[in-house]
């Protein structure tokens, strides 16, 4: 079993889990560590700082549901890649105050939320070797 791990961010208390992702636009690239937000049912939200670094312009607007009321947010077209998850997407990201990854990135994977060591880990199951599957010698 292998694990890919990312440290919690402690810029707020208690610290929160993050996942490092690489974003790119037509001519810019940025590595960011968005907050993992299980309340977000989308894939990616990018904050103002990431929008500025990527120099992306809106590709649309969309009505989203927030804790307080529905709100309209810009959409940005970005390339997202995460080597440990072996994913690369050209996707629409929601423009928000700060960057977030949502449940679409988490689904169908096994995660370990280690709040003691302040780490968020992806559990990667290796296929066992053929020898491992052989019955023990008598």
């Amino acid at each position, binding site marked *: 079993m292998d694990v890919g791990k990312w440290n919690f961010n402690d810029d707020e208390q208690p610290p929160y889990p993050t996942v490092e992702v690489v974003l790119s636009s037509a001519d810019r690239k940025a590595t960011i560590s968005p907050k993992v937000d299980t309340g977000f049912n*989308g894939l990616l939200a990018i904050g103002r700082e990431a929008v500025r670094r990527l120099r992306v312009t809106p590709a649309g607007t969309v*009505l989203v549901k927030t804790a307080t009321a529905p709100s*309209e947010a810009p959409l940005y077209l970005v390339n997202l890649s995460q080597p440990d998850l072996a994913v690369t997407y050209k996707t629409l990201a929601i423009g*928000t105050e700060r960057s977030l990854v949502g449940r679409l990135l988490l689904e169908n994977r096994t995660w370990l939320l280690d709040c003691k060591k302040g780490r968020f880990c992806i559990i990667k199951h290796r296929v066992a070797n053929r020898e491992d599957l052989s019955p023990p010698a008598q």
Partner: protein
Amino acid sequence: MIRPFVEAVRVFKSEPFRSADLVEKLGYATGYARNFLSQAVRQGLLIAESRKGKREKTFKANPNVVREIVLRGGKEKEEFLEALGLHSRYLGEYVALRGFRVVDHDLDLYRLGERVFSTREEQYEIVVTNVGTPKKIITVEI
């Protein structure tokens, strides 16, 4: 300015119309119609065209305005999409627009984005938005 423009779009969509059509179909006074047309052309909302051999100009909604209105968002956007007739066909869905044309639509924002932006070269001319409240709305912290 946006209100009479939206009304013109509601009636004529992207088809050309004359000043007299505004008077006849929208009940505007002749002076008001002329004033609106000259202002709307100046603001880039309408495109004026002179037909060969005809003295009277025709006008049609500028397709570039669609992107601007969608990106501004708010009530104006919803009224505009309703005037385009999108509420009757795509209510609760996400649509991808290129000018006045709906190039694709889906209940799922990400599925739509994947289809529309994966292959098209004209992706910077396309704008994506919701029509009414999405049935599959995104929940997020803003």
